[in-house]
């Protein structure tokens, strides 16, 4: 079965959604992501949807749920790179994603997360840096 790759960048996780979502893929992503957040104790999650041209209320709800799940596990989630047409569609569908942080692109998303969660503390046991 298809899986959406989750990339790790320090204490941030990057998820790039490039294919059409359906409910099994969505729940697989949520399983993987929550598992990863817990495993690496990630502080931030970037969900990049810049390659999605079409979204429906299902994906809208999936995004809201996924970022709520991340928040429960102590990580900030940011949805980045939403296309104009997608934003218009979601607003027309009445999906406002309140409570979800958004950013224009991955770079700005990282910047935003850094402002919110700060840079990772260097300690002797941390081998990542």
């Amino acid at each position, binding site marked *: 079965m298809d899986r959406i790759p989750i990339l790790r960048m320090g204490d941030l996780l990057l998820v790039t959604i490039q294919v059409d979502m359906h409910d099994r893929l969505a729940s697989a992503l949520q399983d993987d992501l929550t598992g990863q957040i817990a495993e690496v104790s990630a502080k931030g999650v970037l969900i990049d949807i810049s390659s999605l041209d079409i979204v429906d209320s299902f994906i809208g709800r999936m995004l809201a749920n996924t970022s709520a799940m991340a928040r429960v596990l102590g990580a900030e989630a940011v949805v*980045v790179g*939403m296309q104009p047409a997608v*934003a218009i569609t979601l*607003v027309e569908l009445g999906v406002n*994603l309140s409570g979800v942080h958004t950013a224009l692109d991955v770079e700005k998303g990282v910047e935003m997360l850094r402002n919110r969660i700060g840079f990772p503390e260097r300690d002797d046991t941390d081998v990542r840096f």
Partner: protein
Amino acid sequence: MNTSIANLLVSQRNEIFQEWMHQQLSSEAMRADLISEADLRTESDRFLEVISRAVQSGNFNDIRAPEYKPVLEMLERFSRSRGFQGFTPSETATFVFSFKQPLFNALRKSGNSEPAEQIENVWAANLLIDKLGLYTTEMYQQSREEVIRRQQEEMLELSTPVVQIWEGILALPLIGTLDSARTSVMMETLLQKIVETRSELAIIDITGVPTVDTLVAQHLLKTVAAARLMGADCLISGIRPQIAQTMVHLQIDLSEVTTKATLAEALRFALKRSGRATQSKDFRE
């Protein structure tokens, strides 16, 4: 029945044409400043030709029938050109209606002594010409509406400029009433520009919006929500005191949006938020 009219239009064609021309040239509706006599002659001749061909079918009622197609096409072209030349609708329709008198005169001179038949002929011709006259007015109206529609579209394109006023700051000065068509154009251009310029802040200035009702407010909030979904924040500026009062009376909730009284104030706020100092010496440099 009515074959006599069809025959008359063929046999008496020249007399009818002369009388009609004479009448048109001397009538009040004649606009020598807008159209030359030669052009009018060509048009009249053409009308006479297509109508006499159409009535040969014996159909005097249904102008949508195929045999009237050339007549309607000729009248449509005629109305359009008259509209562009600056004729009024009644002057345009008079062209068709003025055809009645020469036609009736010809009928009278035709020597038909049967009153009932004559009346029937007159009535049929009357109905037909009325219909054609009304069709002319309809076409005139239609061409005018096309002009209005085109102008509206042009205005729509002109009326939603998105300007970048600072690095990362866009401004959208709105002028005129906001309806749903304009809002969607506005939303699209704004969001597109946000992507192009990677701006995180957009100032929607509504100084030029005369009234804000619940619908307009809803359109504004939709735009703000869409920009937020993409990761950009919107400020709304230029809310006049009366509009602020109306908004509160209408219980429009703008608590989710940052609002400022003037564009300058909004720009100051935006600069501060993006980490730029706003002391005056910064601007002088």
